[in-house]
């Protein structure tokens, strides 16, 4: 079983990007608009904690799944390499000879 590897170098920028945003967004506490409007003033009054818990869990779950699938698919493309069977990937549209209007437009 080939163990496909994931470079630390590949992962590092994602950590850095996240770190950057944490600095800049956490740093404007307690405001949403710096010096003008606070986070506490900003929140929706009509949404229930249960509702947000539902959305939080569902969004994060689907994102984790998508990220995992994405990583697998990128690995797969990488593994196939740039010269993998070009004919399958090209947008060749073959006419189905048994299709009724194959010869018409």
């Amino acid at each position: 079983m080939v163990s496909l590897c994931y470079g630390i170098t590949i992962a590092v920028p994602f950590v850095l990007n996240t770190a950057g945003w944490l600095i800049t967004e956490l740093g404007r506490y307690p405001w949403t608009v710096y010096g003008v409007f606070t986070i506490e003033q900003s929140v929706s009054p009509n949404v229930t904690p249960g509702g947000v818990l539902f959305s939080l869990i569902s969004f994060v779950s689907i994102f984790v799944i998508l990220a995992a699938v994405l990583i697998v698919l990128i690995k797969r493309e990488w593994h196939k390499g740039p010269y993998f069977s070009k004919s399958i990937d090209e947008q060749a549209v073959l006419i189905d000879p048994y299709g009724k209007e194959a010869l018409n437009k």
Partner: protein
Amino acid sequence: MDILVLSRLQFALTTVFHFFFVPLSVGLAIAVAIMQTLYYVKKQEIYKDMARFWGKIFVLSFVVGVVTGIIQEFQFGMNWSEYSRFVGDIFGVPLAIEALLAFFIESTFIGLWIFGWNKFRKGVHLSFIWLVAIGSTLSAFWILAANSFMQQPGGYVIENGRAILNNFSYLFTNPYLWLQFPHMWFGALLTAGCLIAGLSALKLLQNKDTAFFKKSFNFSLVLILVGGILVSGVGHTQTQRLLNIQPMKFAAMEALYENSEDPASLAIIAGIDEANQKRSWDLSLRYLLSLLSFNSTSGAVDGMHTVNQQFEQEYGPGDYYPPVTTMFWSFRIMTAGAAALLLLGAIGAFLSRKKLLEKNRWYLYAMGLPSRFLSF
């Protein structure tokens, strides 16, 4: 559970996730566009192969970036309705422009690019990927314009308890934006460069398609070096600017509770006691903070206690201390990480130049360092 905590957590997590894929997409869009341009100009098949191969990875990242982003536009209204009421007059404008201008361009032309390899003349098809790259960049610009308004508001007045726009040009001339946007954009180049470099290094280790991946690797080094140097330069200027416009953020990044001495030392690492609002210990370098902040060997920086007092006078009593530990360590990770990537990039350029790349497997390992916990 507290609605405020949950809403903030959700916004933070969805944004962080979205921002995993955005810099990669923006950077790869530029990278693939350049590759395809090289193909168009030099007419060598290998560049077309590069554009197609890295383009496949780009498309995968792009679609995940798009779908994680749909939520963001809705989330302001859904979870932050009072905010939307207060700043909608101003904040809604860059968001609407982002959709009208950037989203339409990038999403229309990516379809044309993916499905149009054999349908259009080479020059026309090339323009598609450039339009996608420009669209993604514009998208980043306008959302950063919105965020920059939050960070350094201007061009507005308060009327009837709402912020009302009275100067549209401020939205896109905001000085904060013109540091944040290039910073993010160069960071995107760096991100894409590292992905290409890492994946190429792994293939070079396996001795597969070496001509292709050597070329890709050399290409990525340009992205890493240009992106890395410029992201750091802009970041440096940005941080200096923070001293004046957001002193609390600056002090928190440095875990400066007390005012610094003059000349000011920079804490490389420190133990932070947030509960008691002080440092437990630190390892500092003299002069360094003055040097970085003021380009001089003297100059003191206000600590969080001082700034908090100023804020209390200006905005009323309260606790204005941000999450110091997170910010302090994030800043160090970010800067140290960028330096490490730049170093790796420079070594790579040297080795590649000297055609020593394959002989120095240790380097290839570093770039594509195998991590055994992900095996398929």
